[in-house]
């Protein structure tokens, strides 16, 4: 809605503070910011239900096969999961600080905190890759490759647990990889000086995504690694 004044000799647009990243369909940067935050939460609500569907199926079978679920969780290296949980929480802190630095107009502070977030996210993925390799070697990948047979009577149910394990952690890791790609783009944008107190919405939205992925892991860790009676080793 840019009004044009026609009283003078030349038309003068009424947009003295036209910010380079203000999209034409928004009244101002404040409205644009609220719309993008709200839009991101709308997306996250679909993500909550997306992961919620898998979690619900997981709980149905956990109720049906409690022994197999405890044995399945015992196949995990619990302390690697614990370390990864801490690593991901640290990455959430650095992500929150990246947003804070953007709000305060600290260009390099934003860049460093985004790099730190990418660094800890990458450590998480590295540890995850190591766990995947171990599980593959132990025959804990469902399907033809599955040859875990310590408790023959429960093997098919343990295989079902591992199917949930690979699906849930795999979907989570996919989100992490997408997040890492986005972070690379955001590091460049922050370095180019795109963000500041007037325009930190994209960093905020990036943070919402990253924290959401962290929350998913906060639930996956106890669900997949810490079922009581699971770890005696």
């Amino acid at each position, binding site marked *: 809605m840019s009004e044009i004044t026609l009283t003078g000799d030349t038309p003068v647009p009424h947009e003295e503070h036209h910010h380079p990243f203000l999209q034409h369909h928004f009244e101002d940067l404040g409205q644009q910011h609220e719309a993008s935050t709200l839009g991101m939460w709308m997306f996250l609500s679909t993500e909550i239900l997306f992961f919620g569907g898998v979690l619900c199926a997981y709980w149905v079978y956990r109720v049906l096969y409690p022994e197999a679920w405890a044995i399945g969780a015992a196949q995990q290296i619990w302390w690697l999961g614990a370390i990864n949980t*801490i690593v991901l929480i640290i990455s959430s802190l650095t*992500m929150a600080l990246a947003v804070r630095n953007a709000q305060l107009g600290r260009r390099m502070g934003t860049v460093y905190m985004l790099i730190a977030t990418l660094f800890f996210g990458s450590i998480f993925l590295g540890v995850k890759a190591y766990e995947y390799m171990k599980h593959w070697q132990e025959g804990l990948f469902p399907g033809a490759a599955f040859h875990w047979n310590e408790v023959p009577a429960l093997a098919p149910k343990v295989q079902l647990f591992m199917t949930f394990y690979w699906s849930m952690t795999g979907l989570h890791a996919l989100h992490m990889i997408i997040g890492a790609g986005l972070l690379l783009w955001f590091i460049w944008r922050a370095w180019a000086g795109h963000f500041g107190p007037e325009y930190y919405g994209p960093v905020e939205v990036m943070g919402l995504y990253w*924290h959401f992925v962290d929350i998913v892991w906060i639930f996956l860790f106890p669900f997949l690694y810490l079922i009581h009676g699971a770890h005696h080793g």
Partner: protein
Amino acid sequence: MADDHGRHAPKVHVTPMWIYLTVFFALAVGTVLTVVASRFDLGMWNTPIALVIATIKAVLVILFFMHVIHSTRLTWVVVIASFLWLGVLFVLTFADYLTRLWKIY
């Protein structure tokens, strides 16, 4: 709106450092607690305790790291509605499964 367009920057709520650090510390403590609690045989309480700790951690992240505590009411509606629908998914599913298998319990 016509008289003030193009001028309004987003409202900036800069969360103090100590809040971020306290939340981080609480999340780390929660992680340690959930590991420790899983080591003890608490009978039927092991699962609820793990769930409660995870839920508290998630709420802390949502309120402080995701800034929902300073968000518009519309954002609150979307956030709460998301979990409400998640609740519907779980309640209706288990209203079925838990009552079908009543003889186990």
